[in-house]
């Protein structure tokens, strides 16, 4: 149970390998833009709509989809996302349905689909069993907001066995040593938290985001994507100038809540104008 080795396995943060997330980001890069990553919770407002909304993301400009598992104690989520996940749970969402959502999206689109989850539901199902089912559903891997590499020995093993991406978070407060360890342990991309705080739209993500991205790049991360607080195409453009991908969550969840799948499609189209195609390789 002590800190395990975080040596990067083959295909880790420094190489594409079999990583679906890395491939999606590299494809965007080859088109001269940062990747656009959209978050939605599974089962909100119901399982089928969340599948339809995920497909709408993919068909309107999102390169990589992040699907959240509704959880009883979401300490990194702001009000909008928590309300959506509470509704999903109230509507009877159960954790195994996440595989239906992932499969429903991957069957219809080429988008890489990552699952964002707090750790206890995975632990409860069994880390290996969860990984096996996620891989079978066509999922790319996991984003783990409350699992740091220090505690992730089981997940490192299972993600290697099933060829899944493991996206760990780094924050403005992350020390240089932790940055190195986390970059080494990650596969697919490194998730840079733009601000100290929880999810939610903000007018500015501040200078901290760029500093975190630079630090992750300096530690050897090939792909660093920025999340928390991004809600407009202008922000996507601003962050896409220095990051390899931009993650939008709360704004999409609010769009789904207020306007359904069509509103998600419309917002996605608008956000994707923030990742313009310029000269190849011009996003670094």
């Amino acid at each position, binding site marked *: *149970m*002590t800190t395990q080795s975080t040596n990067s396995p083959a295909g880790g943060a420094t190489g594409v390998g079999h990583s679906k997330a890395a491939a999606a980001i590299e494809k965007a890069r080859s088109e001269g833009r940062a990747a656009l990553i959209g978050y939605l919770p599974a089962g909100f407002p119901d399982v089928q709509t969340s599948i339809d909304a995920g497909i709408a993301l993919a068909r309107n400009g999102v390169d990589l989809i992040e699907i959240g598992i509704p*959880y*009883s*104690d*979401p*300490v*990194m989520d*702001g009000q909008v996302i*928590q309300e959506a996940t*509470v509704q999903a*749970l109230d509507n009877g969402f*159960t*954790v195994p349905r996440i595989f239906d959502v992932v499969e429903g999206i991957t069957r219809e689109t080429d988008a890489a689909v990552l699952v964002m989850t707090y*750790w*206890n*539901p*995975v*632990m*409860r*199902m*069994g*880390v*290996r*069993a969860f990984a096996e089912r996620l891989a079978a559903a066509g999922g790319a891997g996991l984003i783990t*907001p*409350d*699992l*740091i590499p*220090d*505690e992730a020995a089981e997940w490192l093993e299972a993600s290697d066995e099933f060829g899944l991406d493991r996206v*760990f*978070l*780094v*924050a*403005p*407060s*992350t*020390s240089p040593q*932790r940055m190195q360890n*986390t970059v080494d342990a990650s596969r697919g991309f490194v998730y840079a*938290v733009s601000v*100290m*705080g*929880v999810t939610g739209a903000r007018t500015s993500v501040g200078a901290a985001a760029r500093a975190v991205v630079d630090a992750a790049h300096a530690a050897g991360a090939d792909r660093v994507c920025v999340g928390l607080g991004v809600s407009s195409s202008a922000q996507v453009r601003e962050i896409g100038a220095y990051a390899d991908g931009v993650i939008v969550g709360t704004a999409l969840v609010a769009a789904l809540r207020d306007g359904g799948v069509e509103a998600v499609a419309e917002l996605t189209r608008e956000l994707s104008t923030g990742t313009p195609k310029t000269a190849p390789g011009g996003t670094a």
Partner: protein
Amino acid sequence: MHQDTGLPAGDAGAADAIDGGAAEAFLSHDQSLRHAPGPYFGAYGGRWMPESLIAALDELQETFEKAKADPEFTAQVADLNRNYAGRPSLLTEAQRFAEHCGGVRVFLKREDLNHTGSHKINNVLGQALIAKRMGKTRVIAETGAGQHGVASATAAALLGLECVVYMGAEDTRRQALNVARMQLLGATVIPVTNGSQTLKDAINDALRDWVANVETTHYLLGTAAGAHPFPAMVRYFHEVIGDEAREQILEQAGRLPDAVCACVGGGSNAIGMFHGFLDDHDVALYGFEAGGDGVDTGRHAATITLGRPGVLHGARSYLMQDEDGQTMESHSISAGLDYPGVGPEHAYLSDIGRAHYEPITDAEAMEAFKLLSRTEGIIPAIETAHALAGAMKVGRRLAADLGPGEKASDRIVVVNLSGRGDKDVATAAGYFDLLPDDSAEQEIAEEGEQL
């Protein structure tokens, strides 16, 4: 101890979680269990936390380790304990109450006599000093019944720190007088309307606040749970309970007790008390959890008795969870025990068999509440009443197991009287139907509230 929950066996079942090596070492008496530093207690503990908070936890750990080794800091803590909190607290023999405990001798460790009325003051004074050493100007806390919130507001006032207390909206209604106390002490109380609106959700919101304000703010966690170093640090500040009790019982009874009893929600008073006796292998340790309406009803907070290992609020420990890993709502007549998790060191002590954990129902606790009030003139907190009800069972068992020529009065039980019952008078008055039909209090009690 771990009853069948009716849930499918997970990958982390109780039997798998036992640290065989530690249990073996303990049983062979060659390893001290005292002062375990963390981050792990067997398979429990750790840091299951957002990366944003890891730097703050590192800073806290480093500051705490240096403070412990600094004579100036330990002298500060001792001075506040003696001249502000009122330590050492008394060890009172309860002769009339003992008649209901099989006739064994019963001693009460009087944490109820501390300033603010419970053991909570030990921890908040220590942590508030740590916050000052880190240069933080603001503390946040969570509270269920209000004891920890009042204690935090008190320590913040004393040391000149801003204080914000998160409290489930349901609990702010049930404990309106404690909300007023916190406000009188200068704290801001924020009612939490998420989730079940109780202690668990207050912790979630406090964590959100901490993520956003970690530069200026220390999270003054109220129990020996959460991410490392909280379980070890909170226990450190409460070890004074067990240290004093051990010394006092040797002086007053001339020997160590046969059993030590304490109530367990998160488990801070119990872990402090237990530590004094952990290496005394002949002293049995008992933690009493909130059995609510009964552990068969689903309405309880008996986390170790019926929970399974999982992760909540930063630590791996026993957890009341469903087959999906979603936290289940707990229930107890005591807001302070109404928590679906438990400190990781308790999970470990249970697994290796050093401490025993049993549920006490609301009804059993209230019976003990009444009994102590009427036999000793001490109104205990309802949390504490769980330990008293447990002590009655333990005492009767000890009396039933006497050998030839032995007397019940040869047996000694020490109970941690973790807090006084002033805050619970309205609940108890409603429970025992003591309020006149036309009183305002009765009207409020009928709505399920306490004030």
